[in-house]
């Protein structure tokens, strides 16, 4: 770890504000100009269970969580049991002797008993424990309490003034208690640096804001972790941005409503997780056949079936690639970080409308929920491309408008209901250029070819990601989606060990960057794949696409994302 680095974690039962504590703590350091990455873990329970919030703080950019802790707030004993091994030498653990007793477990760490509950109850509510703990943590980190106080004021601004007062009191008393009772030379002190006005954002927020920027007008969904925060975010903005946001009866309704809205000419989308995506499969094909633009987001979680609702996994890749009967073009995009979430949802809308095809964004719980500091999005470069969406004027000049006209690119100009001179019918049956049912063999072949052809033109437009890292590397890592952060951190760790590595992220899985991947494969000394699943799905796709296998698969499928350290260790094992 470099200078001005700190990894803080708070752990306790659900219902004790573990998640919001993480958020407040992270924002406090963001405001001090530092880079922050947050990571939460919790079971699918509302109260009880083991919950943690991790905040990684650094002067340099941080891309992921980590398995080493410098400052641990243990609100219950379970937190100690589960995380004591992760404490780094010189670490501090804040806990409350009134809640559980502790003997020192490790020589090189400091136990810091803070009467969290007594202070909280003293102020007026046990629920303030997390605020007291944050105040105490800021004291240990030697950081500026006034920044924390400002964050508190901001976060609770919609609440009553007494709530704000109590929380301010709580952080201050926690802070003071530590200052008064402990004076230790904590190795991981943090000081504010020049603030470049960054934002702290998670994948779901990035997708939501990106969609708003892209002109989203209609959002239909059914709640499902880890996609639900998109619904909540958009619902909260629906009046301000004049978007209709509907929670509907099921995911079948959601996707069909989105298809209806897209068909009628507005930008619409739905987000869900695997189970909900399963219910969207039939309608996906309707969009494919009727050439209705469609944007769907699948925030993956461990499957099969209900699986582990609040955990993470990357195991729906093959599923979304091939979902629905029959064959039709589709695009599958797997953003690896919050920046890609933002820009790719905008690309998704442009591609969906331009090519009149379904576009699927594949995210996961880790990407959806983890917050990262980034520069504000550059919105100047963004353009809204609605493709061949005809105006009424253009329609007037068309002699007889045929919705499914055969064209060189396979893309037919699109009209929308209410336009004069545009009247047409669409159908999920095979159809002729008028959109009427046809079972003619020649027409069928031509229509399949027409739809497929769009992909050829689309392929040319996609800018695939380059291989990043050392040119002649000891090892080349292939991966997709949210493993990006841990891999970038692992590359740093490998470098410290003198191992050079590079990394090929597959952002567009369909259309697949065959040439890029082939060339990366051919240049590599040693190849590894890193995937958060059991069956190495990308590895199979690479083999299918290039005929070339990957030497080693580094896989994890216990519902948790790789830590950089785990990837680092596994790569060293196979080298």
């Amino acid at each position, binding site marked *: 770890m470099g200078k001005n680095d700190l990894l803080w974690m708070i752990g306790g039962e659900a219902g004790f504000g573990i998640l919001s504590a993480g958020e407040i703590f992270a924002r406090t350091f963001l*405001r001090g100009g530092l880079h922050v990455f947050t990571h939460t873990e919790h079971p699918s329970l509302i109260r009880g269970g083991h919950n943690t919030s991790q905040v990684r703080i650094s002067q340099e950019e941080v891309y992921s969580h980590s398995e080493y802790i410098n400052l641990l707030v243990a609100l219950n004993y379970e937190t100690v049991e589960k995380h004591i091994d992760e404490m780094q030498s010189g670490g501090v653990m804040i806990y409350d002797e009134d809640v559980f007793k502790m003997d020192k477990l490790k020589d090189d760490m400091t136990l810091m008993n803070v009467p969290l509950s007594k202070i909280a109850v003293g102020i007026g509510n046990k629920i303030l424990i997390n605020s007291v703990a944050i105040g105490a943590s800021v004291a240990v980190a030697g950081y500026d309490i006034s920044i924390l106080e400002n964050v508190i004021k901001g976060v609770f601004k919609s609440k009553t003034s007494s709530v704000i007062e109590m929380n301010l009191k709580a952080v201050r008393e926690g802070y003071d208690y530590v200052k008064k009772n402990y004076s230790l030379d904590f190795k991981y002190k943090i000081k504010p640096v020049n603030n470049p006005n960054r934002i702290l954002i998670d994948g779901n927020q990035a997708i939501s804001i990106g969609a*708003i920027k892209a002109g989203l007008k209609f959002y239909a969904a059914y709640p499902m972790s880890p996609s639900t925060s998109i619904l909540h975010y958009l619902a909260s*903005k629906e009046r301000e941005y004049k978007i*209709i946001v509907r929670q509907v*009866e099921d995911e079948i309704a959601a996707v069909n409503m*989105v298809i209806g809205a897209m068909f009628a000419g507005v930008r619409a989308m739905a987000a869900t997780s695997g189970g909900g995506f399963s219910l969207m499969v039939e309608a996906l094909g309707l969009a494919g056949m*009727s050439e209705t633009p469609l944007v769907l987001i699948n925030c993956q979680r461990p499957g099969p079936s209900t699986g582990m609702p609040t955990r993470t996994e990357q195991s729906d890749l093959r599923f979304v690639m091939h979902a629905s009967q029959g064959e039709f073009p589709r695009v599958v995009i797997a953003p690896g970080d919050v920046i890609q979430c933002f820009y790719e949802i905008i690309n998704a809308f442009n591609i969906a409308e331009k090519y009149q095809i379904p576009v699927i964004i594949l995210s996961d719980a880790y990407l959806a929920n983890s917050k990262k500091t980034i520069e504000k999005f550059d919105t100047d470069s963004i353009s809204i491309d609605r493709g061949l969406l005809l105006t009424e004027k253009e329609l007037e000049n068309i002699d007889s408008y045929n919705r499914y006209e055969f064209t060189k690119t396979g893309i037919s100009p699109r009209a929308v*209901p209410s336009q004069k001179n545009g009247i047409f019918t669409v159908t999920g049956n095979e159809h002729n250029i008028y959109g009427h049912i046809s079972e003619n063999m020649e027409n069928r072949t031509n229509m399949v070819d027409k739809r497929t052809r769009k992909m050829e033109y689309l392929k040319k437009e996609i800018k695939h990601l380059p291989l990043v890292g050392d040119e002649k590397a000891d090892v080349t890592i292939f991966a997709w989606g949210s493993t990006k952060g841990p891999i970038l951190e692992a590359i740093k760790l490998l470098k410290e060990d003198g191992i050079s590595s590079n990394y090929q992220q597959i952002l567009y899985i369909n259309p697949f960057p065959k040439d890029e991947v082939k060339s990366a494969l051919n240049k590599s000394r040693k190849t590894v794949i890193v995937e958060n699943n059991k069956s190495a799905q990308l590895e199979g796709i690479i083999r299918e696409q290039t005929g070339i296998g990957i030497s080693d698969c580094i896989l994890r499928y216990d519902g948790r994302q790789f830590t950089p350290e785990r990837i680092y260790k596994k790569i060293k094992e196979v080298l």
Partner: protein
Amino acid sequence: MVTIDELNVKDKPKWCPGCGNFSILKIIKNAIVKLQLNPHNVIIVSGIGQSSKLPHWIKVYGFHTIHGRSLPVATGIKLANDRLNIIVIGGDGDTYGMGMGHMVHAMRRNLNITIIVHNNQVYGLTKGQSSPTSGLGFKTPSTPFGSIENPVNPMTIALSAGATFIARANAFDSEKAVNIIVNAIKHKGFSLVDMIQYCIIYNKINTPKWFKDRGYYLEDENYNPNNKINAFEKGLEWGTRIPFGIFYVEDKPTLEDNLPQISDEPLVEHDIKNVNIDKLMEELV
């Protein structure tokens, strides 16, 4: 002045000669002419079935979707452009079978759309299996020993689900049927027209004669369609007498009424070229 001619397409509908669907198609055209709706402001959304092929044979916008999902697609279209007149067409299998869940939820939302269900008490397109409205004992290839499931009652379900206009019409009594549909489309809110449609191939029981022997119009009996309890009672009636006409009408805010987002103009007319997200980013600092 829109005319029937303007609504006609060149293709002849591909239903069996004598099928009740021909009559319903004509009824819908007549209703559109009577209401003088602009064809390009009308869209017919259907599911899958013989009935659901209807949009191919009338010159208004059409979306022939998938089995059971016409209402969600129609909801999306309506919310995208609430100035459109949306007519949903479905079969009894399509709407009351596969689509039952969506129907109940669409009704409680009270969106301003009209659904016309071609109720032939059988699955036409898939060759004659029993449908959710088939009578007990109805013999089909899938129920060779007779149906043993109590039929769905669309009237009472619609009433319970919150539809604000509920009627039963008869494809073979076109004049009255046109009238009912005109009223249904005029109604501001969710309207259901259960349209008795005779399938001459697969339903030899519930023939036009069968209905003639039993049918009567509520309006002929001094019936007040503004009372839920009465409507329920009439909804249950299905035996020696079968009521037709308007069962229930209620004046109630629609879903659109409660969406200030579209009080000025429909979503489809909002400008999306340059949405400003600075404020959203500012909140994340």
